[in-house]
């Protein structure tokens, strides 16, 4: 049960010659350089923003509201997402739905993306699968703070990256 960290003494034997290890090190770096030159596509970096990384399914990107077949939101304004949100960044205003079979709907549904911590709790909390974070969008840039608040229309128009059936 005793694994000891080995103490390499820098001033003994071959190690005392600085150059020997430099040569050894060069062997490693040159090997890497040759590998990378042979297969430049395998290099880890991407030419952002020309190339963008595609996020895997399940990645928590920008939110979207799932529409019904008629295009109106599936959301029933139950407030569960707004309650569970640790950042308190969802603002919903509920209204009576004209269709008597649907009780309520959100007149207003705003998410402040500057406050959002992208934890995904809202998606987990929604009892009717009306909000998702599967847009795959992970970069936002705006000129005004107010533009970071995503409104209902924008959230409805956002599409899933993985083209799942709605």
């Amino acid at each position, binding site marked *: 049960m005793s694994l000891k960290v080995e103490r390499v003494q820098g001033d003994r034997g071959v190690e005392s010659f600085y150059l020997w290890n430099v040569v050894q090190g060069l062997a490693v770096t040159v090997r890497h350089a040759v590998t990378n030159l042979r297969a430049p596509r395998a290099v880890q970096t991407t030419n952002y923003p020309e190339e963008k990384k595609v996020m895997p399914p399940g990645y928590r990107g920008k939110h979207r509201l799932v529409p019904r077949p008629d295009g109106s939101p599936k959301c029933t304004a139950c407030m569960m997402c707004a309650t569970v949100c640790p950042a308190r960044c969802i603002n919903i205003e509920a209204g009576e739905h004209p269709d008597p079979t649907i009780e309520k709907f959100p007149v207003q549904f705003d998410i402040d993306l500057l406050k959002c911590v992208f934890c995904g709790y809202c998606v987990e909390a929604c009892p009717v699968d009306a909000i998702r*974070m599967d847009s795959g969008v992970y970069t936002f840039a705006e000129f005004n703070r107010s533009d970071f608040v995503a409104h209902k229309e924008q959230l409805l128009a956002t599409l899933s990256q993985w083209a799942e059936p709605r």
Partner: protein
Amino acid sequence: MNETLQQIKERFQEAVAVESGRDGDVVVMADTRSARGALLEVIGKLRDLGFTVLTDLAGIDYLQYPIQQPGRFAVTYILSDLKRRQRVRLKAYVGAQDPVLPSVTHLWQAANWLERECWDQFGIRFEGHPNLKRLLNHHEFVGHPLRKDYPMRSRQPLSENDSLMDEMVVRLRQKGLLLPGIEAQLATPGVRVSDHGEEAAPGSPSFGARGGAASAAVVERITALPGVLGEPEFYRDLHTELMFLNIGPSHPATHGTLRALVALDGETIMAAVGEIGYLHRGFEKSTEVQTYNGVIPYTDRLNYVSAMMNNFAYCKTIEKLLDIETTERTKAIRVVIAELSRIVDHLVCIGANLVDLGALTNYWYLFNVREKAYDIFDRLTGARLTNSYGRIGGLARDFYPGCGDDILRVLKETEKAIADVEQLISHNRILLDRLTGISAVTAEEALSRGWTGPLLRASGVDYDVRKAFPYDGYEQYDFEIPTGTVGDTYDRFFIRFYEMAQSARIIRQALAKMPAGPIFPDVKTAALPPKDDTYNNIEGLMNHFKLIFEGVKVPPGELYDSYEAANGELGFLVVADGSGKPFRNRCRPPSLLAYAAFPEIIEGHMIADAIATLGGLNIIAGELDR
């Protein structure tokens, strides 16, 4: 109850009560004059019994707590016996009127910053503390934010930086580097000490030993130092003046918002003091209004390099409070992910440290594989850094198909990258010369400073929470605890290579026998029902509603629980009041006590070595400042 604790009980009669909590024995000190007087004696007795390490010290404010308590505040001392693997939680109650307790700084160096934090957050004074100054909040801050009557959202304008000169003067005095006559000037009210000795207003003291007769004492002192003594005579003229320099708070080499004010003689640090709090965001206060699950995204931001370990640490604490056990599958997944996170954390530590030392190539090799590990986290949890993967009782998601194979593949690549790096550095004399013998910390000192994790192990103490207080089934895995011998930067740096190898061993074992089954235990009061139930049956929907609106309800109680995070013992002291929200969340970050030691252990070394030491301590500001 422990027999010896029984003796303590008998000896101190009504001043002391001994209870047994789910986390071990609890010694409770009443809020009376005699009890407060006996506190040091009780602590001394506990030390004699083997509880020689102060793991944590934190306040609790019981105002508005539903169960009547013997005093408004309680200061909790977590004392550990590393040999017998036991802990005792000592609770000293103290009333609202002028709360004051005796300081334990003379027993443990760790108590210094812990008591400062407690004073800062709760306004509890510690008599005999050498420098009871605020720690996390700004020095102009008014009030004590963790008190229950401090409003959550109140704001205060704060303007002036802390020059830290008050602490520096004390330090210089201790080292005998202060000019005679300056102390008297400092005691004069209204004298503002400038950050820069040169630009101080007329009449204000200067700290430089600026040649001439007045500074002779200082010059003499410096030139008597062992390193200086060996120098040729004519170099002596160089040691004439101390220069003050701020390292940080925004310096690329500190890898976070840390500040150290150093007094330099040439490049050698003669005296240093530290300041933290630049990334303090009130983790403990803000999480009091969140549900237990709502705390998890906050824990992501503690040590953000290995966020999921914090998630699991918190979940584990709450599960213990709830007295539920998670499923075997969840335990195994937590082990695999935690160990992978540990590897990632060490990769970042080693890579960044080597950049500071000028060995950039290693950084690329290590960060390449880290990127691949993050790709797995991405797919598994839905986020790269702030994963929020743990849930009270279980996990956010199960493994995706093929996740285990992905992890094994990345593990292999990681091992290759590590082998490359080892070939580059492990016999490289330039690096070895930079690390060997720098800022050595003995085992005894490391224990007194409250160090844990790789830092403590580098000093030769084989304490690991995974072995001492096993959780998540760590006892079934075959792994070893590497230890160092000298406790210098070399040991603190290279021990991480050994730890990564052990983590890889654990991951392989855990993946090989990954149990099938659900990720949540069948506990309706903690686990969200499966989505099918929520969508399709009313019972599931009702349960879902209750859990979302009220949170997981935890019965009243409190306990301290710890987890072996990448940087050491990550502890949570949680007080539950029966509602769905924690009454008090205390986080014991390993980095805090590591950084508390930093200014002292770099004294006598060069600036560049101090940076290497800092890298070896691997301070993560998010966790340090909370």
